[in-house]
């Protein structure tokens, strides 16, 4: 094994780089798994623990916006952004989810 200084430095930087991309990789695996699982389990029958159409819609929207939040945090790196930007993204995500649920509820009950 070659322990010269340039190789040790190169190995350290490579390790640091792998660490810095690992959260994004974990999130990618999680999002892909949840997407495929939700398609396999819920595309026709809905999650087994939810029976009503409205509840299924809310659940689907909740999961979708949770994924959006993870994309903000780990792909767009908002987690290391200034707090003002993090707040704007958080408010947008929450407002998006709430507004879609509100529209659907209003239309269903009118």
């Amino acid at each position: 094994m070659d322990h010269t200084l340039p190789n040790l430095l190169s190995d350290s930087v490579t390790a640091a780089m792998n660490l810095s991309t690992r959260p994004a990789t974990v999130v990618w695996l999680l999002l892909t798994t949840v997407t495929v699982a939700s398609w396999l389990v819920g595309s026709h029958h809905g999650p087994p623990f939810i029976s009503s159409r409205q509840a299924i819609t809310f659940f689907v929207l909740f999961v979708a916006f949770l994924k959006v939040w993870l994309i903000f945090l780990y792909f767009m790196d908002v987690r290391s952004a200034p707090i003002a930007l993090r707040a704007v993204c958080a408010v947008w995500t929450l407002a998006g989810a709430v507004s879609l649920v509100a529209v659907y509820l209003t239309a269903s009950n009118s």
Partner: protein
Amino acid sequence: MLILGEASVFTLLFGCFLYSRAKAIDLFAQSEAELNSALGVTNTVLLLTSSWLVARAVTAVRQGYARASGLFGAAALCGVGFIGTKAAEYHELISNGFTAFTNPFFSFYFAITALHLLHVVIGLIILLALRTVSRRPFGNPRQLMLVESGGCYWHMVDLIWIILFPIFYLIA
């Protein structure tokens, strides 16, 4: 702000769709059943993977690594895959007699997915540009900012699809 603005426009369209869906739930549910959800989930995985590759590429650019160019190229390939899958899906639907004029569900479906597809094409051009410029190390922070902005545009394309896919394909 541009990215949140674009995403907000799509959210407004999703709201209009959900409102119409609630008013004609049986028609919409029947129409949803005609969509090929396997192609839809394929596209979701392609965009998630491309977004992951872009995130890794931007990190590589920050650290001055040349492999950023390859990562942007791989992300662009995923984008091309998305366009191909979408074309196949449109072909299948149109061959089965479903167009934007069939009923309100398909009007929404074709309009919103076509608008998203336009953003995918724009994003693809941006990715190819990033692939070219990231072949050499960057000399100033402004160049890095442009790369990060381009990457964020692609993440927005992914983010919109993440909401679009379950609304059109999974709510039964």
